[in-house]
């Protein structure tokens, strides 16, 4: 229950002629994780003989699939019963490759042409104010430059060009009121380019132009229209082809993908001329199921046996369903090795408690439950949804701690009721939800700090006890050292609070100090026996671990300060209530108060998740967890 599922390594031996049928059976059954066979007296097996044709057709079909458009209602992951031979025959019937290549090439050409025409049109638009036929300006000895010049620089440029012989400048309306569109013609030998550049002339290189810019713009627009029309025709042809072939293509793709996996899986086998061997891991409980199934399908031709050894098995977490959200948290950090403790069920207890202590507000618990519910409803399975499930679960202890701390959106229960106009006085509700267990996080900080560190000591002790269980099978000395660390924590618990809060050493209770001292000495002996003198240097480390739980108080207090002191006192009591007579201002401020509470809840959710996870993954895990397990991944047709 607290361990990953038990795994069994097996060896399968059979005739090579049964290989394709066996690999298909294993793929369908989905029970076995195939591993590379090591240390057997046989050569490596080659992929199945159909691999080459499967691989070629798969590449071809994928290429076609990428070009076609997905059809509405077509499921990408539907199951196919099509045999491989039929799939390959169907591949032969699909002869659209050449046409698709032609269409694709034409589409690319047209898109490039449209881009180039649009660019030319944009440039010509800058010169649209020039009523000049550019075709008539062409001459062997003259060069013309078209471009834009600022109105304020125009006269200066004109003056500068006047100094050059046989130069002519024509101007027209610019694209903006501050510009002129110009064309300057001059003998090539005069080289007016430098003069133009010096006066901020912005050259417009629109390529070879025959006619006026406006005429050329019209020609470009017509050409773009024509090209777009052809593009639409190509799109329609794609649509017709997609409608006819897409469904078939994805079905074939699915079959070929399955067979590609089967063909390459045998590369992990070893083989002689007639026989093959494969190794793999499966759940121990599935050993006989596989054994019987292969016997039924192959008679006595396939031989299955267990392999004993110390190989590291893959890990499969197998907790009851209610605990599966916490498997996500375990996997998020690192999987346990197959033979160590699976902390999922322990995290299911400790994570919500630590989280709840940090959020600790009934209202915030309700908001976080609603927010988490929204995320779960709107998102697909993945990291965010995994965290949302944890938020939803942990919102319940948040509400319970909210009752213990008497925090309701930063108010006490009594104050909240009174602000809402419900007079509860000294009723039973106030006793249950308020003063009976009331520990104010804002005013009893010392007590809160002690409680959080006490929780830390208990949490660390649990981790050390799990470490003791983990180590017992490997090294009794190291297992006892874990108990020694629990003793050191217990002695610290007896001594440290007095040292922290007593005014003088003389006021220390001698009985507790003596008991603490004895426990400390015995525990230290156990630790030094296992870890040597280095164990002594670890004591500040474990004290630091325990003090680290003070973050529960720190995060909680930060949340309360924002909720109680800033949102409620400053905005609600300071601004909203004095303006009760003005409904607009009152409701506006109330809405702002609610939004700020939601924002504060979001901060509390995120911070409590990070800090709660950190306390579990760093302080707690460090006492027993090794990790580094490899996830059990059976050879299966199910999509991972």
């Amino acid at each position, binding site marked *: 229950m607290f361990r990953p599922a038990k795994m069994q390594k097996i060896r399968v031996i059979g005739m090579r002629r049964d290989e394709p049928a066996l690999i298909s059976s294993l793929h369908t059954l989905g029970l076995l994780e195939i591993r590379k066979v090591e240390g057997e007296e046989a050569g490596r097996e080659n992929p199945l003989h159909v691999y080459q044709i499967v691989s070629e057709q798969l590449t071809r079909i994928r290429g076609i699939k990428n070009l076609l458009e997905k059809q509405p209602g077509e499921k990408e992951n539907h199951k196919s019963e099509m045999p491989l031979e039929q799939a390959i025959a169907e591949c032969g019937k699909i002869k659209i490759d050449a046409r698709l290549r032609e269409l694709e090439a034409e589409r690319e050409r047209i898109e490039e042409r449209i881009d180039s025409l649009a660019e030319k049109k944009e440039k010509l638009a800058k010169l649209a104010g020039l009523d000049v036929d550019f075709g008539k300006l062409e001459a062997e000895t003259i060069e013309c430059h078209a471009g834009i010049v600022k109105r304020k620089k125009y006269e200066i440029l004109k003056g500068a060009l006047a100094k050059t012989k046989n130069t002519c400048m024509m101007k027209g309306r610019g694209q903006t009121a501050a510009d002129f569109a110009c064309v300057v013609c001059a003998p090539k030998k005069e080289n007016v380019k430098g003069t133009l550049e010096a006066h901020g002339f912005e050259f417009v290189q629109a390529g070879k132009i025959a006619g006026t810019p406006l005429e050329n713009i019209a020609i470009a627009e017509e050409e773009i229209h024509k090209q777009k029309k052809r593009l639409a025709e190509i799109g329609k042809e794609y649509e017709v082809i997609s409608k006819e072939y897409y469904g078939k293509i994805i079905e074939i793709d699915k079959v070929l993908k399955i067979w590609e996996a089967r063909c390459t899986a045998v590369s992990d086998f070893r083989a002689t001329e007639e026989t093959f061997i494969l190794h793999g891991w499966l759940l121990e409980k599935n050993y006989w199921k596989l054994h019987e199934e292969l016997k039924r399908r192959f008679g006595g031709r396939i031989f299955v046996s267990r392999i004993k050894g110390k190989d590291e098995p893959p890990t499969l977490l197998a907790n009851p369903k209610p605990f599966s959200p916490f498997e996500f948290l375990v996997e*998020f950090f690192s999987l346990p090795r197959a033979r160590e403790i699976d902390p999922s069920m322990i995290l299911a207890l400790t994570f919500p408690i630590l989280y709840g202590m940090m959020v600790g507000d009934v209202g915030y618990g309700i908001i976080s439950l609603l927010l988490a519910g929204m995320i779960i409803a709107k998102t697909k399975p993945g990291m965010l949804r995994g965290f949302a499930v944890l938020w939803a679960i942990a919102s319940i202890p948040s509400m319970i701690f909210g009752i213990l701390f008497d925090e309701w959106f930063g108010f006490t229960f009594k104050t909240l009721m009174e602000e809402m106009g419900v007079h509860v006085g000294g009723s039973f509700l106030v006793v249950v939800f308020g003063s009976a267990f009331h520990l104010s996080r804002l005013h009893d900080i*010392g007590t809160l700090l002690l409680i959080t560190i006490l929780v830390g000591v208990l949490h660390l002790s649990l981790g050390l006890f799990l470490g003791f269980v983990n180590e017992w099978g490997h090294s009794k000395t190291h297992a006892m050292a874990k108990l020694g660390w629990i003793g050191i924590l217990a002695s610290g618990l007896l001594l440290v609070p007095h040292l922290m809060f007593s005014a003088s050493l003389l006021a220390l209770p001698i009985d507790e100090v003596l008991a603490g001292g004895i426990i400390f000495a015995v525990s230290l002996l156990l630790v030094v026996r296992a870890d040597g003198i280095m164990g002594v240097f670890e004591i500040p480390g474990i004290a630091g671990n325990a*003090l680290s739980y003070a973050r529960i108080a720190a995060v909680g207090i930060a949340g309360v300060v924002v909720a109680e002191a800033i949102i409620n006192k400053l905005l609600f009591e300071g601004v909203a209530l004095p303006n009760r007579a003005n409904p607009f201002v009152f409701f506006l401020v109330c809405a702002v108060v609610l939004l700020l509470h939601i924002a504060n809840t979001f901060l509390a959710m995120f911070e409590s998740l990070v800090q709660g996870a*950190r306390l579990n993954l760093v302080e707690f895990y460090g006492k027993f967890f090794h990790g580094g397990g490899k996830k059990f991944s059976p050879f299966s047709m199910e999509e991972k």
Partner: protein
Amino acid sequence: MAEIGTGLVAIGAAMAIVGGAIATGWAQATIGAAAMGVIAERPEESSKLLVYLALPETIVIFGFVIAILLALNTGGA
């Protein structure tokens, strides 16, 4: 004289928090920069790196504990 003492204790408590916060920020900046480099190469390690990024927060928590103890001993909390 007692008021000056209380003020000094308050300054000491503030320094404990400020010093811890600066040290945490400094450490997290260094770890964060290194973590981003690792994530660029090996995105699958991001979950572990988040934990490393949260490690230095213990420094400011110690500052917080010290500040609370100082405040408690002077009746400030």
